[in-house]
Every structure is written in C-alpha cells, then in structure tokens.
C-alpha cells in the first residue's frame, strides 16, 4: 500500500474519532438543559392525562408538528396520484 493511502486513512480515522468524541463524553440520561423534558415528564400525566408521554408530546404539546406530518402524508399521496393518473386521449408526454 502506498504511503499516501495510509495517510488518507489515518486522517479519516482521526476526523471520525474527533466527530464521535462529544457523544462519548456525554453522560447518557442527564442532559445539560433538561427544563423542557422534565416539565413534560413531571406534568404530562396531570395536564394531558396520558400515560404514554411520547403520544402526549406528539398529539398535545407538539400538536402543530403532527398536523404538518399529516399534511406531508397527504401531499405525498397527491404526488403519487398526479404521477400515476390516467392520461387523456390526446395528451402526450412532455420532457423539459
């Protein structure tokens, strides 16, 4: 193997390790800013009366985001419907 290839491999390895370093240094389960999630965990069962906090966040605290998700699905179906529609008799394909 050429020395250039070895050097490239070493640089890539060092870059990947430096990118992965922050995730290795973080302690799992204790984030620095936990105001929002501890609020949801502490008050989700009182406010939304829901046991599954994830569903509580998705459909109550972040309901607007879920509306966007549903609209994305609707738009996807719209696109498929347009792509697979039945052509008219005299309609021709146009490639631009």
């Amino acid at each position: 193997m050429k020395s250039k290839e070895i050097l490239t491999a070493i640089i890539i390895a060092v870059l990947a390790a430096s990118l992965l370093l922050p995730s290795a240094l973080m302690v799992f389960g204790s984030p620095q800013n936990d105001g929002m999630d501890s609020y949801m965990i502490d008050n989700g069962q009182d406010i939304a009366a829901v046991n599954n906090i994830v569903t509580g966040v998705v459909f109550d605290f972040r309901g607007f985001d879920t509306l966007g998700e549903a609209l994305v699905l609707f738009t996807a179906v719209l696109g498929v419907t347009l792509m697979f529609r039945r052509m008219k008799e005299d309609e021709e394909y146009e490639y631009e």
Partner: protein
Amino acid sequence: MNMSRIVRSTANILFPFILVFGFYIIVHGHLTPGGGFQGGAVAATGFVLLLVAFSPDIIRDKFSFNSMKYTEALGLLLFIITAFVAIALGTTFFFNWLANGGIIFGESVAFGANPGILNSAGTIPLMNVAVGIEVIGAMGLIIMYMLSGIEGGNKE
C-alpha cells in the same frame, strides 16, 4: 395475476388479524407504544397484502379509488376539526379540551407508574383514530395507484 393458492389462503386468514392488531395499536395509542401513524401503517399492511395476493380486478369490486380518497380526506378533516374545536371553545389551537373533563375520555391519571385507563387522555385518542384513518387511506391509495400500472391493472 392471482398469486398461488397458498398465498391467497394465507392472506385471507391473516387479513382480519392484521386489521385488529392495527386498530389495537391505534386505540391504545395513549397507553402503550404506538399511535395513529404506526397503527395505521400496520392496518394498511393488511390491505396491501390483499392487493398483492389477489388479482386487481377482484380487488376493484371491494375497494375503489374514490372510497380510499374519501377515507384519507375524512381522517385529515377529523384531525383538523378536533384541533379547531379548541379555538371555538375559547382556548388555543390544539388545546386538549377533553382532558380531565370527566365526560368522554375525561378520567384523570395518577402521577407515576399505573396500569392505565383507556377512558383518559382527552382529545388524544380522537386524534389517534383520525390519523389512523388517514394513514390507512393514504397507504392503500399509494399501493393501489402503483399496482394500477401493471398489466390488467386496476384502471380508474
């Protein structure tokens, strides 16, 4: 293009069970992992199994393009209406106006681990059902349109 008798029999037997499992995930969305999107995808898998196993001509008599389109639009409409009713009641958009109300889905939940009450969580089960209906319609419609291109397909 029917598939073999084994595939057709298996699809016939499995279809109700897949549907029931999907609706179970949708209805228990506020108690167990899952919800409208996931349960709707599972239930749509049952329709996809039927569409793949049987000839499109046979399926055309059972499900039409328009019924799937209306199902999808109805689900999205129910979801948005549930959100807008909160504004009509004088609160904010997407406010959980049924939670802790004592009427339908109105029971309160104790803090901490508990076995779960199906009759709780306010508008969240309604929204789960609405999204589930929408996902079933959307997935079924996508697969039906993609199958309509093959030989002897389900032309609209």
